């Protein structure tokens, strides 16, 4: 194979450089706002701060309730509990559903898959009023459990499609071998299928986690007490019609991003495997 010409190499690197700068610039800019003293909006396009301070981070972290409790800790806890529960409940529901859709023939299978797909075509806000009424009826407004139910059910269609696609690529002979070895359908599922589906489970779980972690509109409608707030609502409160604390907002945005970044790093091996799995059969 001929080596590419230096002009081509330079062009490729130039494009990569531009894309990298375009991707990193907003992040650096937010970082600059977070590290700069004061709450003004950074109009200077240079993304490196001239003075560095962590007071914005300290302010966000040390926010207290009216009774003097640690409000940020409570809100972080809310977000973590809701997101982890959403991922767990969503995975538990969608894994078994996706496996059934992948392996069994039954009446309504195609229609069910189609219905799952259709639900993904509408923005979440369309469901806002029905969900509000439902949660109100069930006494789950201002309740973390209510948010978990809402997020988990909205993440199920996407998770089912992703997992079904992955299960379709797993050779059926492995399950048949397990059954010949004496395993029940449940043992085959838990001891052979699920371990092999780890990359897909990691990806799907991460998506569910992120969906719940970043969600704002449903959370701000279904929850009104600051003790029940999730972090996206907290962020929004720093910049509203009457107030614009850009420094606190930027510091909060970085703090909110950290758990997701950490999860990405922890799961990146599975993430790449999961995205590429199924692209080649066999």
């Amino acid at each position, binding site marked *: 194979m001929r080596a590419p010409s230096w002009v081509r190499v330079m062009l490729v690197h130039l494009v990569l450089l531009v894309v990298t700068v375009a991707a990193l610039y907003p992040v650096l800019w937010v970082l600059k706002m977070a590290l700069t003293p004061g709450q003004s909006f950074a109009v200077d396009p240079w993304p490196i701060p001239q003075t560095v301070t962590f007071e914005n981070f300290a302010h966000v972290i040390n926010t207290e309730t009216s009774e003097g409790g640690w409000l940020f800790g409570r809100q972080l806890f809310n977000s973590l509990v809701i997101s982890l529960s959403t991922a767990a409940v969503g995975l538990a529901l969608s894994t078994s559903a996706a496996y059934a859709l992948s392996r069994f023939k039954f009446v309504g299978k195609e229609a069910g898959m189609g219905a799952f797909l259709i639900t993904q075509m509408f923005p979440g806000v369309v469901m806002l009023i029905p969900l509000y009424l439902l949660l109100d009826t069930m006494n789950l407004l201002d309740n973390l459990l209510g948010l978990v139910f809402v997020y988990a059910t909205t993440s199920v269609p996407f998770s089912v499609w992703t997992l079904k696609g992955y299960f379709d690529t797993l*050779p059926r002979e492995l399950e*048949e071998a*397990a059954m*010949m*070895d004496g*395993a029940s359908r449940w043992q085959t599922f838990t001891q052979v299928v699920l*371990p092999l589906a780890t990359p897909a489970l990691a990806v799907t779980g991460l998506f569910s986690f992120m969906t719940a972690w970043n969600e704002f509109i449903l959370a701000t409608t279904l929850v009104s007490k600051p003790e029940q707030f999730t972090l996206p609502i907290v962020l929004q409160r720093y910049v509203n019609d009457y107030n614009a604390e850009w420094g606190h907002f930027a510091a909060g945005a970085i703090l909110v991003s950290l758990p997701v970044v950490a999860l990405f790093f922890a799961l990146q091996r599975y993430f790449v495997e999961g995205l590429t799995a199924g692209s080649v059969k066999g």
Partner: protein
Amino acid sequence: MATVTLDNLHKAYGETVVLDGVNVEVASGEYIVLVGPSGCGKSTLLRCIAGLETITAGELCIGGKRANERAPRDRGVAMVFQSYALYPHMTVRDNMAFALKVAKVSKKERYAQVDEAAALLELTPLLDRLPGQLSGGQRQRVAMGRAIVRRPDVFLFDEPLSNLDPALRGHMRVELKRMHRRLGATIVHVTHDQVEALTLADRIVVLDKGQVQQVGSPRDLFERPANVFVATFIGAPAMNLLPVIGEGETCRLEGLEQALPVSGTGAFTLGLRPSDMFLADSGIPGVVDVIESLGSEAMVHVTVGAHDVVVRAEEPVQVNSGDVVHLKLSTVHRFDGTTGRRLE
């Protein structure tokens, strides 16, 4: 070890009939090979015995007891799949021990049994490896080991050698033969490779279009094929088939003036194995078309009348393309011109 009886077995997927009244009795400790072309139903038949496919009609008995409705795990059978189907996330040891783990055998006991089977198959140094770290031949042995550990009444092999290269396949054939002798197991083996069938089987079942064409020992099938299908399927190169018209002591072949020295009456199909003809100074005349040299022997394609026949000859072959040669016949087979059945 157990017997396996297939009594008028049928399998259909909707309107498509895959197995059409299969009757076979496998004796305890017998090595039986199901052979046939792709799509003949041999793998489906094996999967019916395994319990991985439901039986549409007929009866399957394992060890003399009806097994149609029994779950795979309750049939006392172990299967080696064509792809080996090793669990990729488990080590060789855990793959082999899986069945015993499911059966709630203690860890100590199951690993002892795995060690025993591993020693038998020379897998001991590989026990801590993952399947992805093994060669094709090693994976095949692990799949065998996984079956052995279960101590089943019947082993089912679904084309277990088809993914191996020719040299390794030959070696593994010998290993299978040894394993059968050591374990005295009842084995039902599916293959499309007739060499595998002829070398391994106590008896061969030839299937075509879901029906049993013939059941017999490898020698039976080679020497007395029941019909044209078996005659052409068993033996390589395939038997030459010539449509002839019998005239009592001789018969006529289209395009050939000289009568063939084969008795018969009316229209029938004459079967001649390449090894049952030889080049001679006199006999049936023909013209050499192509010579395929295989080292110690050669396949000489000769045009006789309006037909081509293949003759096996020992090297060095003293003829060239275009030469006129003469053929002598040793053994001939006769088949009904319409039904294709063997004529005695």
